[in-house]
């Protein structure tokens, strides 16, 4: 326990977390500090490309694992099932409407790639390795949750034609972050160690520093969201934002253990299950469920669950994984 606290403490004092805190502070203090939209997008493209490439290169290096196929499948199932649990919990704990509850639930089935990236860098810092293909699992978990949530809504409304159409389906499956992550994974895999060596002083060396600036931006955006949306954070909703990642991580733990993943792999699957989307899913919800209130799902995902995972969640999940899996 005390070890856990000290790990959490170490984690809290990393430049990454403190950069997020700085952004949060600046936004809450209403500083005019801001990162241009184009720069924020550029940073996110860099991170997706780098994490995908490194994952692919590591698969090329260590060779394939029979578990890859099962892990992808497990990711899809987790992503599809977690929204049902989230939905039930929301209806129980909060007064949110079916529509708002379904929209929020979609976010918690899907994943936050930057939480994943932060966890990877904590694992690296502790010298814990993990399966390179966890990046592919992350990509596989982005979309299924959206379908589950829309199914929850159409079932409830008796199917008024709302929600999914083929255009939206394509938008979801081919959204920029999935394509870039999977594409970079494939490139890393195809070019392997040699490819990685060629560009490692771009995608490996400065990675953590770029992550700091990106988290500074996320802190700014989260802080602005909290300032505007804090009204919606009634106790039940707030509690959900902390409880749901814990539940999600439990499922991740169970599935990861069943798959026989390494310690690092289990921890990452816990992180993926615990994290909530704030890129792909919000966009899909604006198209498919425009009546759902975006400030609820954005404030919860980015303002509550993301900081929780970043600060306490990640060290906690790793500690639990260590206890259960050993290593």
């Amino acid at each position, binding site marked *: 326990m005390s070890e856990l606290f000290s790990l959490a403490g170490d984690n809290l004092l990393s430049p990454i977390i403190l950069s997020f805190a700085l952004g949060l502070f600046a936004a809450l203090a209403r500083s005019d500090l*801001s*990162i*241009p*939209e184009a720069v*924020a*997008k550029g940073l*996110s493209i860099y991170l997706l490309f780098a994490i995908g490439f490194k994952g692919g290169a590591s698969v090329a290096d260590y060779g394939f694992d029979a578990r890859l196929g099962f892990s992808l499948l497990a990711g899809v199932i987790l992503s599809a099932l977690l929204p049902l649990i989230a939905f039930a919990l929301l209806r129980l704990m909060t007064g949110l409407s079916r529509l708002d509850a379904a929209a929020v639930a979609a976010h918690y089935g899907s994943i936050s790639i930057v939480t994943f990236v932060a966890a990877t860098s904590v694992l690296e810092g502790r010298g814990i390795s993990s399966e390179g293909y966890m990046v592919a699992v992350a990509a596989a978990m982005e979309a299924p949750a959206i379908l589950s949530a829309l199914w929850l809504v159409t079932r409830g409304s008796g199917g008024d034609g709302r929600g999914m159409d083929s*255009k939206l389906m394509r938008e979801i499956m081919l959204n920029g972050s999935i394509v870039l992550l999977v594409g970079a994974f494939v490139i890393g895999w195809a070019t392997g160690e040699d490819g990685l060596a060629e560009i490692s002083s771009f995608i490996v060396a400065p990675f953590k520093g770029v992550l700091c600036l990106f988290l500074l*931006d996320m802190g*700014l*955006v989260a802080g602005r969201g909290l300032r*505007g*949306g804090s009204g919606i954070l009634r106790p039940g909703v707030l509690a959900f934002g902390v409880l749901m990642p814990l539940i999600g991580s439990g499922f991740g733990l169970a599935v990861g253990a069943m798959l026989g993943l390494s310690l690092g792999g289990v921890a990452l699957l816990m992180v993926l299950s615990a994290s909530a989307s*704030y*890129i792909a899913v*919000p*966009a899909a*919800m*604006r*198209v498919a469920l*425009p*009546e759902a*209130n*975006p*400030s609820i799902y*954005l404030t919860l995902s980015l303002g509550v669950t993301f900081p929780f995972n970043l600060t306490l969640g990640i060290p906690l999940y790793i500690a639990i994984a260590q206890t259960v899996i050993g290593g």
Partner: protein
Amino acid sequence: MQTHRAKRVEITIEAVMQSRLTEALQKAGVKGYTILPVYGGSGRSGEWNRSGQISRAHGMVQVICIIREERLDAMLEAAFAVVERHIGVVSVVDCNVLRAERF
């Protein structure tokens, strides 16, 4: 100079709906439009601005469409079908254009 009467329609709509709107406009016979980036705004759904955003969920665009008067109604129907369930604003102004053959 010789100018011709036309309508200038301005549709402020969420960025995620942009391609759905322009497809609908094209089906309704609109021959051209111009899209302006929107930096921020405020309305019933609160205040927002674009800085630091990476999700397409945030952000709106303004689609400006200059159109002959006789096509206006068909166009507004098409636009309305898209914006109906979404946030956004549609306004129409009388204007005069050069080179009327283009509209």
